[in-house]
C-alpha cells in the first residue's frame, strides 16, 4: 500500500493508458497518415453520391419544387456544424482537465472547419429563404442561434491565437468553447421552445420522420459524406499542424547546435 499521500501511485495501467496512449501527437500522426487517403476517398464518394442523387434523381417537393433540393446541402451542413462544435467542446474539456497537447491541436483545427460548415448552413438557408419566405434573413430563434454558433466559432478561432503564450490562448479558448456549448441544445430545441418561421424537426432517430424515403436516403448519404469530409479535413489539418511543429522544433534544435 502506498503510504505517501502526496505522491500517490499512478492510475492502474489499463485505465490511465487508454486516454494517454492515443493522445500522443506522434502516435496520432502514425495512425492518421495511412488513414487519410481512405477517409478522403470515402468522403468524396459519399458526398458526391448524396448530392448527385438529391440533385438529379430525388423527386422535387410538391409545394416548393426544386428549391427544396437545398436541404441536401443545408441540413448536412447544419448537422456537421453542431457536431463539430460538440467535438470542439469535448476537445476543450480534455485540454482543460488533462492538458493533452493533442486536444489543443484538435481544438485549434476544428474551429475553422466548423466555422466553414456553419457558414455554408447560413448562406444556403438564406438563399432558400428569399424565394420561400421573401427574405434572406429573419430574426428567428433557429437562425439567430445558428448565427451565434458561427460567432462562437469565430471567437474561438480569434481567442486561441490572441496570446503570445499559446498555452494561455488554448486555455481561454477552451473556456469559451465549453461555455458556448450551452448554445447547442438551444439550436436543437429552438423550433419547439419558440414560435419560429423555420420549420420543425423533420428527421427523427426514433422513427416517425416526416420525409419520404426517396428524399431521406440521399439526405442521409449526403450527411454521412459531410461528416466524413469534416473528419477528413480536421485529421488532415491536425496532421499538418503536428508536422509543422515537429519541423519547427527540428530547425530550432539544428540552429542551437550550430
Amino acid at each position: 500500500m502506498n503510504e505517501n499521500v502526496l505522491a500517490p501511485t499512478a492510475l492502474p495501467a489499463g485505465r490511465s493508458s487508454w486516454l494517454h496512449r492515443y493522445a500522443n501527437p506522434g502516435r496520432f500522426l502514425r495512425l492518421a497518415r495511412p488513414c487519410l487517403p481512405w477517409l478522403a476517398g470515402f468522403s468524396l464518394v459519399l458526398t458526391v453520391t448524396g448530392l448527385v442523387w438529391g440533385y438529379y434523381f430525388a423527386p422535387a417537393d410538391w409545394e416548393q419544387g426544386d428549391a427544396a433540393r437545398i436541404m441536401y446541402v443545408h441540413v448536412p451542413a447544419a448537422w456537421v456544424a453542431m457536431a463539430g462544435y460538440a467535438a470542439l467542446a469535448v476537445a476543450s474539456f480534455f485540454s482543460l482537465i488533462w492538458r493533452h497537447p493533442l486536444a489543443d491541436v484538435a481544438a485549434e483545427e476544428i474551429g475553422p472547419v466548423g466555422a466553414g460548415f456553419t457558414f455554408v448552413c447560413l448562406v444556403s438557408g438564406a438563399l432558400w429563404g428569399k424565394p420561400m419566405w421573401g427574405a434572406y434573413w429573419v430574426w428567428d430563434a433557429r437562425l439567430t442561434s445558428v448565427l451565434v454558433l458561427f460567432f462562437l466559432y469565430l471567437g474561438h478561432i480569434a481567442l486561441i491565437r490572441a496570446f503570445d503564450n499559446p498555452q494561455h490562448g488554448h486555455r481561454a479558448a477552451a473556456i469559451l468553447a465549453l461555455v458556448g456549448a450551452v448554445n447547442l441544445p438551444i439550436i436543437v430545441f429552438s423550433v419547439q421552445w419558440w414560435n419560429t418561421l423555420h420549420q420543425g424537426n423533420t428527421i427523427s432517430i426514433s422513427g416517425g420522420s416526416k420525409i419520404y424515403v426517396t428524399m431521406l436516403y440521399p439526405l442521409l448519404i449526403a450527411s454521412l459524406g459531410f461528416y466524413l469530409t469534416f473528419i477528413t479535413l480536421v485529421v488532415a489539418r491536425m496532421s499538418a499542424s503536428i508536422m509543422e511543429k515537429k519541423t519547427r522544433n527540428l530547425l530550432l534544435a539544428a540552429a542551437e547546435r550550430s
Partner: protein
Amino acid sequence: MTFFNASQFAPFINGSYGISVLFLIAVSFLTLTRYRTATKRLAQTESAK
C-alpha cells in the same frame, strides 16, 4: 422587380449547391496543399539532419 428570383437560375446556382460545392472544393484544396507542404518540409528537415 425582385433582386433575386430563384426560378431564373438552374438549381445548381439558385440552391446552395454551387456555393457549397465550391466551398468544399476550396477548403479541401487548401487543406491538401497545407498537408503536402508540411509533409514535404518535414521530410526535407529530417533528411538534412
